[in-house]
């Protein structure tokens, strides 16, 4: 474990091989008068330095609760972390005494919230609120801390920062307020930054600016970024990995391009289908029918089964399907993931009517692996995947890969099931 004592300097390089943040089997429940709501049921993921992990899901899926549990800012009561580990550079945050954890919170793991107007304290000037980080964590004096606040405000490109340092949150526009939130979060050069829907409250042009700023800052400081969002468009541009959450579980985890190109979970598929697309002009926009389950009464079996068009009797009983490897570096929690994967843009793939045994069919696995490798190819960004995947791709037919070409070429934002194959399925989905 390399828990370096941090100074005002940027993050020290990590010890080789130690993941920045490793969440294992995290469990969170809310004990309320009506009963116990199991908000997080065994979430696991890993975040590396410089990596962006997007956590995707509807409201109530547990994305924000996951973030709050990592930060240690759950409202207790009613929220309790009942199990799992959150290893920060090898040290379990959940077992740490609060005092020690507080030193990490904000300075090494920082968080950006959704609505900056309510997330900033209305009665203190913004400069004061940024400077507070330096004063509390670094013991700087008032003037020096305020000077650092001005520098940060300049860094996040707030015009006339020096004049505005004494202004109050309500005197800024939404985008500028979010920049102030960001300045406050990056004040002490955190190594992990959790952004909880950082652009949801903003209009589209400002969203792009804020995401760009976050990306620049991440490149500059090699932060691990956890981006919590329900906006697939935002994710596609920024994240390398996506974890899709549903009813407090991860249902699918994959590299962005794999996930967009070939969702292996019906829920992911439903999310992708519900993105408005230019090539589907005039058609009814697909939506996932029904509502997320009440966390007080999560259905037996797979929690998604009442809304799933692939659901079989197997899905309605027993334990929820485990998150299992379904390809190189990707996992899905679906009994019938091969069918789901095959039903996607399907054209050149092996028969869409896969039997249940298809899960173990090496051909499918390899096809998926190949597809991801190919999709990544043009971007050329993720060599670590390419190495292993291209090996697989080499063996197994290039023909299977071909249909994925346009997906990669079209860019991840538009990548998804093909229009014709998709819409027919969608209508039965409800």
């Amino acid at each position, binding site marked *: 474990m390399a828990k370096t004592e941090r100074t005002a300097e940027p993050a020290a390089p990590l010890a080789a091989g130690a993941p920045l943040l490793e969440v294992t089997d995290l469990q969170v429940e809310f004990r309320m008068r009506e009963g116990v709501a199991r908000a997080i049921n065994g979430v696991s993921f890993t975040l590396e330095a410089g990596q962006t992990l997007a956590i995707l899901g509807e409201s109530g899926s547990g994305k924000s609760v996951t973030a*709050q549990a990592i*930060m240690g*800012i759950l*409202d207790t009561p009613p929220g309790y972390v009942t199990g799992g580990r959150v290893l920060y550079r090898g040290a379990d945050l959940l077992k740490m005494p609060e005092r020690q954890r*507080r*030193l*990490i*919170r*904000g*300075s090494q793991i*920082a*968080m950006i*919230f959704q*609505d900056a107007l*309510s*997330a*900033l*304290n*209305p*009665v*203190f*000037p913004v400069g004061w609120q940024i400077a*507070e*980080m330096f004063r*509390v*964590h670094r013991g700087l004096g008032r003037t020096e801390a305020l000077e650092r606040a001005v520098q940060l405000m300049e860094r996040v490109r707030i015009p006339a920062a020096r004049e505005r340092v004494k202004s*109050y949150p*309500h005197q800024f526009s939404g985008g500028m307020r979010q920049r102030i*939130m960001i300045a*406050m979060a990056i004040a002490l050069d955190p190594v992990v930054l959790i952004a909880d829907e950082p652009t949801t409250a903003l209009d589209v042009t400002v969203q792009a600016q804020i995401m760009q700023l976050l990306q620049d800052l991440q490149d500059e400081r090699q932060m691990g970024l956890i981006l919590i969002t329900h906006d697939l468009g935002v994710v596609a541009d920024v994240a390398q990995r996506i974890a899709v959450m549903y009813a407090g579980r991860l249902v699918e985890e994959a590299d962005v391009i794999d996930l967009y190109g070939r969702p292996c979970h019906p829920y992911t598929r439903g999310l992708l289908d519900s993105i408005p697309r230019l090539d589907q002009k005039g058609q009814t926009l697909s939506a996932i029918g029904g509502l997320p389950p009440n966390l007080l009464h999560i259905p037996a079996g797979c929690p998604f089964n009442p809304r799933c068009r692939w659901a079989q009797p197997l899905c309605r009983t027993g334990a929820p399907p485990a998150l299992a490897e379904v390809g190189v570096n990707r996992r899905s929690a679906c009994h019938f993931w091969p069918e789901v994967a095959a039903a996607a843009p399907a054209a050149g793939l092996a028969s869409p009517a896969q039997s249940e045994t298809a899960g173990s069919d090496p051909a499918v696995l390899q096809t998926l692996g190949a597809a991801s490798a190919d999709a990544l190819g043009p971007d050329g960004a993720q060599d670590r995947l390419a190495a292993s995947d291209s090996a697989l791709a080499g063996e197994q037919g290039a023909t299977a890969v071909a249909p994925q070409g346009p997906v990669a070429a079209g860019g991840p934002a538009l990548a998804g099931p093909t229009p014709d194959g998709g819409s027919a399925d969608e209508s039965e989905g409800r």
Partner: protein
Amino acid sequence: MTKYIVRRLLQMIPVIIGATFILFVLVFALPGEPWQGRCGERPCPPAYVDAFKKEYNLDKPLLIQYGIYLGRLLRGDLGTNFYNNRVIDELAVRYPTTVTLALIAIAFAIVIGITAGLVAGINRGSFLDTLVTVSTLVVISVPVFVIGGLAQWSILKLKLTDIIPVTATQGTIGQLILPGLVLGSLSVAYVARLTRTNLVENLRADYVRTARAKGLSKSRVIGLHTLRNSLIPVITFIGYEIGSLMGGAIVTERIFNINGIGGFIFRSIEQRDGVSVVGAVTVLVLVYLVVNLIVDVLYGVLDPRISHD
């Protein structure tokens, strides 16, 4: 800000005129005559009544009387009452007692009220919270004369009268402690509840979560970030309470035999002493307006979202 204050001060002029006029009409409309009972067991002789009327301009129409009064008021003269005492002197004797009593009551409201509210709010759902919520409810629902009587009775039973006097005839600070507590009990209860509610509400606010995410200590999160927001409405409420308590407290003054403004106004009304009533109430209206102005200005200082420009 200066512009705002000037505007508010100018607004006071019509308020004062309106208030005095209404008072004047009401006093005029009261049944009974001011010379009643001045001539022993028999009715006053007409000659006396005429002289009395002439002296106090009671023979003139109401509007003229009011005009004369207003003219005097502008010169700072509150008039001379029917007992030939200047109203201003009557007030000067009693007002310090009333102010002291009000300030003691407010001190209790601030110290006990805010403390109880904070304890309850921070430990929401605990025994202390329930204790505060229930006891303040009791105080709010029980009339002041019951609380006052109960307080006196308890002190007498406990034989503590040497330390805590149960009457305040001279109006010294020591004597006014118990009346102050009784008078302030209602404010204590309201302040405690208001503090608690606002604290509980603000503890759930997003900015509190941000403060925790910044890695601040619990005491800083609550004591600085939450409290600063929670106390804004409480301070405003206390400000307005000062304004109303400055108007005297008829019941509390009666119970503890205090020679204050409340009792003076009450007696003046009984005696149809219009000049005293109008004079005293005019002063109270002025005090209330000034206190309100101070509170409003203070509110803008405490909450940067409120702008007076």
